[in-house]
């Protein structure tokens, strides 16, 4: 049903004031999914076009950013399907990758000490860029975009337990990459016996 001019102005005005301010956030999320600026540009355009056309379905007062993230994620998946480009690891592969990370030979304390000597900013940016899906989107949503586990689960279309698992493994992968970075940079000293085998955080699933 066509809108009257006044209704159209209200439609556009509310979209501009509630959806457009999240463009930076949507871009960051799109970039985390695509890891490519040109692709992120396309995904953000697609996200906002779909959001604009569906704006009448958006429930006023609810979280517009979460809604946009969901559209963005779906736009990314559709693009990926069209391109037949397999980016996301299958669950079996996820388990395999995670298993290489989760057991860190009880040296969490030494790694923690090592990482405190590192300027985390640049190294973390690089590590995040290298973090594989589906870990990257979970880390981006929760740690960068400050979404709850529940919101991230809704955006990603997976159960909360899956978000928790991907998030924790993603964080462990990042810590491992940072540790390797520090060692490559010569910041690390050899792990010595001074390191007590302290209890290592092993977040449950």
């Amino acid at each position, binding site marked *: 049903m066509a809108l009257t001019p006044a209704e*159209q*102005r209200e439609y*556009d005005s509310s*979209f*501009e004031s509630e959806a*457009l301010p999240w*463009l*930076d956030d*949507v*871009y*960051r999320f799109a*970039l985390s999914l695509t890891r490519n*600026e040109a692709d*992120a*540009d396309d995904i*953000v*355009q697609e996200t*906002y*076009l779909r959001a*604009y*056309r569906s704006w009448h379905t958006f429930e006023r007062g609810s979280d517009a950013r979460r809604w946009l993230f969901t559209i963005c994620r779906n736009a990314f998946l559709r693009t990926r399907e069209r391109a037949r480009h397999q980016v996301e690891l299958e669950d079996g592969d996820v388990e395999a990758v995670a298993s290489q990370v989760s057991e860190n030979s009880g040296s*969490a*304390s030494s790694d*923690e000490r090592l*990482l*405190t000597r590192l300027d*985390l*900013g*640049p190294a*973390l*940016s690089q590590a*995040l860029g290298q973090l594989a899906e589906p870990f990257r989107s979970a*880390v*981006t949503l*929760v*740690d*960068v975009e*400050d979404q*709850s*586990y529940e919101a991230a689960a809704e955006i990603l279309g997976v159960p909360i337990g899956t978000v*928790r698992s991907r*998030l*924790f493994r993603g*964080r462990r992968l*990042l*810590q491992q990459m940072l540790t390797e970075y520090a060692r490559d940079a010569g910041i690390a000293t050899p792990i010595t016996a001074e390191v007590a085998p*302290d*209890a*290592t*955080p*092993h*977040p*449950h699933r």
Partner: protein
Amino acid sequence: MSDVPQDPCAPPVGPGAVDCAMALEQLWEYLDAELATEGMQAVRTHLALCAKCYPHYDFEKAFLEAIAACQCTTCAPHDVRCHVIEALRRAGFCSAEKVEN
């Protein structure tokens, strides 16, 4: 009250209390404020008492803050903003925002 200092790493005493292993297992969920109220309180109490676990908490907290800090300043390039506005206009959107070419 007993004069004997409590050993927080001893098996938990009382409903809801947690030992070191349990506290560390729930550390990220605690930092994310994703535990239930009782769980948040139990981990908070343990960390306040346990010199062994607190450094882990300190490290993980700094790590999570660093992740947020290293990305949150990334903004959409001007070109992306222009492309979005232009695409929306082609779809009928009338914006007060001017696109600078």
